[in-house]
């Protein structure tokens, strides 16, 4: 008997896949983007199916993340997509050990051997097909071009693998620094691979025969290559089947054969047409009730316009302002009366140098005989690159440029909110000086490029997309969080049948909420002050502007040059220039440049650099943390840097004689506090102490396959690599104690460690398989009870090293504490000496405050070196906290490290020329509590609070801007 027709429908987040077959014969298959018109797309495809199947009954099943709603509404059996795939592959390629499937927004790994295990990415999605689309947009090439380019790469840059949003923040500076697109493309694929492995394998090894599925893995050869290389698979074991993008649909059709519903195509069409998709969430209020309301709104905002002039008829001096932003490049040319003669705003298409060259040529052509450029200034991410390339007179810190521009429109401005392509910047102004700066950290959600990506996904331009939102009747409530969460919110809204205009309006509201509650953290709109100026390209979008006013409950000012404010401010600065050195016309004609990637060997940071060589002989090196690579302006060698001092101190502790064996100490988390103690203790016991040393990206990668919880902080995740390194060294035992309590410094109500620092070894023991056959010693100890400590250590060591005696351990504990005490005393003495040095040399002191492990160059990303090169004397929180009283805090002060932080803040608050910058590791839950308190302690005393969020990868460009803004604000305040 002939088999029945089976139809598998896979409705993903971005695409619809149909697969019709009879037994093994595939009669029809399609893979198409649905641009969120799911129902229409399904109907269109059903129509095609009907032409083939006629009125024959088919067995039908639906799968896919966006298929659930339709399946329920239509009454067709639903099969979970990972499950469907697993069942299909088991039958089709029985020797498979593991399946890796990447979809539009999901990533999955299925282990088929030794206990079936199926995993999907957690709530932190991204890094997949939609992410690749986003990246291609960023590089201004097609996905196919990106693939081709990647195959001829020569090097890879580290790109955050946690989620798409972070990766984007890493890639942008690379583009701006002029890195080769080939290399960026390959790096993007590598990031996807790393994320898949780190996020999903969770300690389980991907080996044996691995089948790769899903659209992105089918279409992108570069991605295939990256997976194959990283997993070290030969061609026989890496399977890229030709049905890769239809695997889920095939799985669904297989499921349909046994458990599907029987329908004719006509019946299905009829059902889909009439299905009512259940409405879950309540829509938001429309942005505008009527056209008239919008007209009044538009009229009100048209009042803030900058004066214009005509370049053709203008004679006299002109001033050029350039804002080389993360995704866009802006130019403003001012006349002597500050009138705008020329302006330019466009995406930098990954090559800002070329764009500015073209613009300058254009400008020179239009300038009359008796008109000359009398001053030029540049600001933004690409400031240094452009300044070096074209000999621009002045580089202006972004924040200062924006304030200058804002105060032109409203001298009494209290608050500036700038939402650009990649970043949100806000500053409040007090006494005509920037008082506090807030930037979105390591997360670019809620920004311009975010809206652009969604607009593209729906097949619309940003303008069309925004316009649609203005009169949406029922804007979708999409929440306010990261883009990745937003993606699934949109998915949900689509499932509930939201229209494009509702999603557009809803996204505008999300952008605003994200800025207000996540970046600015405002609860009371009045706290922003009376005069709020909004700017940045995103505010040209009336829907966003309206949503902002609605959320704030007050009217704000949007200058008509909202997108040009940085360039406008820079041009205003350019008016102060005395002698203009901007590259003249003749030179510009011969201007060429090329970029070359190199790795700096200047210090242990081993920065990956991009050397831009310009035809005028100038070079610009991007990507470095310090000025070393430039071969100029070295950080003041004599200026104290406590972070460096600590690293040197740890290095100076050399190993003793090996009488009992070699013991490995992983340099991560709590070891940064107690290394001197354990070092002395084990040396006294006759062990040769082997430290795993300071971290590096390579150390992290050694252990990344064994990380079970990807959302833990980087300082914890890097622990896996240190353990691996020690095992490679072949030490006899690894010691990493669990400590509920830290040292009691009598400065807080309790003296806990955070849960991660306290118990991470327990996790290591459970998840690093190699440790099970290793002497991994992680006793639960109390550091504050020396007798109990000695007993506990004896119990822990004795079974492995039977010659160890209790009296010896007691003596060793004593020696350990002596070493620890002299270390902490030295830290304090160094702190005081640094303060004295700063005073004698009239230098600013920066307390780079965080946890002891933030001095690690990989975790701290060398921010201390950067701060030192900017002229700060750098001290750590524990080197100065003894100089202040315990401040009153409004939270439970119960962690030792955090108690130091509060005291360090109190110290900064009480001293002139001492500033505090708080380093916060992404994912640190405790810092959600400490940051607000630290801010309060500083701000109550008129100090500026600066927070720098750090993760696996940190955008050093943004850090530099922050520190320079801080210096700028301090100087302005001082004046």
């Amino acid at each position, binding site marked *: 008997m002939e088999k029945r027709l089976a139809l598998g429908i896979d409705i993903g987040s971005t695409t619809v896949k149909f697969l019709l077959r009879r037994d093994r014969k595939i009669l029809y298959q399609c893979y198409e983007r649905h641009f969120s018109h799911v129902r229409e797309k399904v109907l269109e495809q059903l129509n095609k199916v009907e032409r083939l199947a006629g009125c024959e009954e088919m067995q039908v099943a639906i799968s896919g993340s966006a298929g659930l709603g339709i399946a329920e509404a239509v009454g067709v059996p639903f099969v979970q997509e*990972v499950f469907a795939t697993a069942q299909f592959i088991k039958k089709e390629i029985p020797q498979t050990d593991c399946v890796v499937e990447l979809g539009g927004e999901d990533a999955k790994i299925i282990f088929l051997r030794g206990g079936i295990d199926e995993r999907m990415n957690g709530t932190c999605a991204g890094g997949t097909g939609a992410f690749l689309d986003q990246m291609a947009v960023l590089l201004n090439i097609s996905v196919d071009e990106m693939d081709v380019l990647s195959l001829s790469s020569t090097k890879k840059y580290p790109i955050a693998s946690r989620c798409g949003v972070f990766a984007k923040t890493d890639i942008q500076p690379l583009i701006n620094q002029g890195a080769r697109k080939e290399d960026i493309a390959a790096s993007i694929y590598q990031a996807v691979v790393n994320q898949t492995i780190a996020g999903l394998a969770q300690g389980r090894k991907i080996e044996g025969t691995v089948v790769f599925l899903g659209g992105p893995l089918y279409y992108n050869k570069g991605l295939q290559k990256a997976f194959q290389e990283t997993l070290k698979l030969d061609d026989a074991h890496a399977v890229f089947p030709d049905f890769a993008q239809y695997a889920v649909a095939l799985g669904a059709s297989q499921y349909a054969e046994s458990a599907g519903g029987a329908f004719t195509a006509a019946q299905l069409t009829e059902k889909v047409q009439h299905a009512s998709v259940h409405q879950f969430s309540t829509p938001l209020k429309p942005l505008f009730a009527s056209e008239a309301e919008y007209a009044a709104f538009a009229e009100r905002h048209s009042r803030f316009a900058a004066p214009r002039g005509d370049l053709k008829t203008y004679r006299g001096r002109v001033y050029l302002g350039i804002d080389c932003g993360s995704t866009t490049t802006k130019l403003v040319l001012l006349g002597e009366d500050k009138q705008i003669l020329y302006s330019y705003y466009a995406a930098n298409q990954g090559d800002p140098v070329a764009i500015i060259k073209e613009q300058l040529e254009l400008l020179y052509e239009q300038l009359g005989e008796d008109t000359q450029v009398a001053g030029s200034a540049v600001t933004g991410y690409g400031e240094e690159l452009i300044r070096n390339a074209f000999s621009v007179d002045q580089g202006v810190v972004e924040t200062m440029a924006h304030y200058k521009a804002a105060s032109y429109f409203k001298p009494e401005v209290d608050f500036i909110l700038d939402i650009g392509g990649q970043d949100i910047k806000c500053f409040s102004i007090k006494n005509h000086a920037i008082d506090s700066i807030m930037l979105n950290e390591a997360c670019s959600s809620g920004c311009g490029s975010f809206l652009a990506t969604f607009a593209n996904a729906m097949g619309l331009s940003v303008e069309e997309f925004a316009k649609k939102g203005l009169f949406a009747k029922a804007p979708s409530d999409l929440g306010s969080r990261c883009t990745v969460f937003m993606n699934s919110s949109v998915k949900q809204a689509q499932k509930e049948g939201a229209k494009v205009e509702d999603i557009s309006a809803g996204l505008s509201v999300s952008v605003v909420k994200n800025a207000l509650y996540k970046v600015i953290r405002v609860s009371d709109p009045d706290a922003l002050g009376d005069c709020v100026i909004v700017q940045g390209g995103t505010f040209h979008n009336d829907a966003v502007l309206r949503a902002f006013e609605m959320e704030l409950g007050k009217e704000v000012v949007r200058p008509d040059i909202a997108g040009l404010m940085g360039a406008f401010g820079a041009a205003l600065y350019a008016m102060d220039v005395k002698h203009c050195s901007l590259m003249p016309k003749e030179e510009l004609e011969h201007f060429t440049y090329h970029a070359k990637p190199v790795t700096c060997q200047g210090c242990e940071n081993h920065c990956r650099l991009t050397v831009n060589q310009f035809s005028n002989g100038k070079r610009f090196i991007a990507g470095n943390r310090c000025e070393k690579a430039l071969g100029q302006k070295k950080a003041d060698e004599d200026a104290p840097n406590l972070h460096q001092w600590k690293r040197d101190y740890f290095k100076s502790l050399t190993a003793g004689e090996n009488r009992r064996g070699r013991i490995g100490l992983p340099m991560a988390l709590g070891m940064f506090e107690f290394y001197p103690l354990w070092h002395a203790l084990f040396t006294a016991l006759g062990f040769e102490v082997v430290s795993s040393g300071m971290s590096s990206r390579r150390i992290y990668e050694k252990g990344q396959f064994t990380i079970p919880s990807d959302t833990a902080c980087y300082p914890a995740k890097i622990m896996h690599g240190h353990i691996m390194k020690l095992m490679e060294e072949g030490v006899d035992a690894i010691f990493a104690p669990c400590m509920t309590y830290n040292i009691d410094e009598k400065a807080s109500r309790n003296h806990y460690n955070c849960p991660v620092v306290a118990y991470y070894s327990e996790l290591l023991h459970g998840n690093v398989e190699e440790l099970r056959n290793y002497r991994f010693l992680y006793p639960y100890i109390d550091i504050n009870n020396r007798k109990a400590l000695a007993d506990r250590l004896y119990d822990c060591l004795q079974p492995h090293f039977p010659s160890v005696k209790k009296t010896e351990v007691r003596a060793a504990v004593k020696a350990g504490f002596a070493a620890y005490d002299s270390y902490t005393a030295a830290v304090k003495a160094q702190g005081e000496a640094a303060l004295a040095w700063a005073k004698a040399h009239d230098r600013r002191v920066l307390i780079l405050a965080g946890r002891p492990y933030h001095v690690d160059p990989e975790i701290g990303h060398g921010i201390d070196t950067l701060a030192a090169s900017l002229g700060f004397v750098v001290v750590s929180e524990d080197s100065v906290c003894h100089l202040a009283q315990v401040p009153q805090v409004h939270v439970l002060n119960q962690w030792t490290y955090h108690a130091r932080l509060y005291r360090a803040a109190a110290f900064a608050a009480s001293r002139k020329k001492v500033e505090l910058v708080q380093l916060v590791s992404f994912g640190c839950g405790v810092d959600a509590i400490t940051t607000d308190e630290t801010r309060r302690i500083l701000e109550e005393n008129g100090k500026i609070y600066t927070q720098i969020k750090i993760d696996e990868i940190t955008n050093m460009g943004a850090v530099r801007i922050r520190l320079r803004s801080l210096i700028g604000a301090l100087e302005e305040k001082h004046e």
Partner: protein
Amino acid sequence: MSDYYIPFTKEMKKTHTILTPNMLPIHFRLLMKVLQEYGYHADLLETSGPHIRETGLKYVHNDACYPAILVIGQFIDAIESGKYDPHKVALIYFQTGGGCRASNYISLLRKALERAGYGYVPVISFSLLGLEKHPGFKLPLRAMQKIVYAILYGDLILHLKNQVDPYEIEKGSAARLADELSDILIRRLDEDGVSIRKLKDNMRYIRDAFAKIEVQPRDCIQVGIVGEIYVKFSPLGNNRLAEFLVNEGAEVTLAGLLDFFLYCTLNNVIEINRYGSGRVKRPVMNLLYKILCRVKRLMISIIEETGRFRPFAPFENTVANAQEIIDLHCKMGEGWLLPAEMLELYHLGVKNIVCTQPFGCLPNHICGKGMMKPLKDRYPDMNIVAIDYDPGVTQVNLENRLKLMLANSAAGRSA
């Protein structure tokens, strides 16, 4: 606690309404009753909806734990609802202390109140150890005993309801009975005092009432829920997780609230033994631990009498389970209790487990997600899915993951 707080005075006892967040609907209704009996005006907040989350996000650091955002949002939302005079309300929140950041909920709540302009509202932190002094809030020993009874009743009702829910012939009858029983028990908590005999009678009454509900055999997937205490229990926190699972054809099992109290008590005992502090506390905690273990065994024996329902495991088993996989000194958040509960479920034959936690939950990196691999290595047929909750969580994402877990379990059974 933080260094400043508004105490709940004796006068306030007469004038103020104490608002309580709702974590476990049945339990908390009974607990309210105990407070009312001792002269407090207590009100349980049973509100839900997205505005609670939004209010929370407005006043709490957005990276703080999701439960803090919800609970604080619910409080402020209630104060602003117009139902209460803000000057005549106090808030109560249960607090365990410890190295997890959850110990800061009270501080975060006070800061949020301050920001919202209600800094004068007293916040009572209620804990086993009485971390703060509130002259107007004192409960005699007898009241504490009743609190334990309320928890026992709540645990039993929930446990039996979960065993009947998916099999009931008349939809909703188990839920209705649970409501009726809590009304009856609210009265009896008052009338019966703290008599052990009455306690036993009442537990038998609950058991027999559930046994009377008409059921039909059905092939259900056994699913256990473990995790961070708030998102594990609160329907507001976990987007009605239990309800969803039952609708998908699962029978849900949850360990009771009493276990969490046992866990906290045993941690105190261990702490004293290890670190040697609090000599006065030692016998008290030891005794309390023994009593709580005993009442749990009592409840178990009463369930076992008829053989109709699956009993709980004795807490001693839970502790032994924990020791198989983790050190008992790992005690922040749900600590060792979490893997212990997973093992307990497994040994009961419940091999499908949902491990719930707020996004970025620090202790669960270690005790939840960090224990899955060692557990699965030992018991390869364990089917665990970790679900993270945060303010941006969407139902479609949650459901897809849960459906995968359910599909896998169905495959395991048919294989």
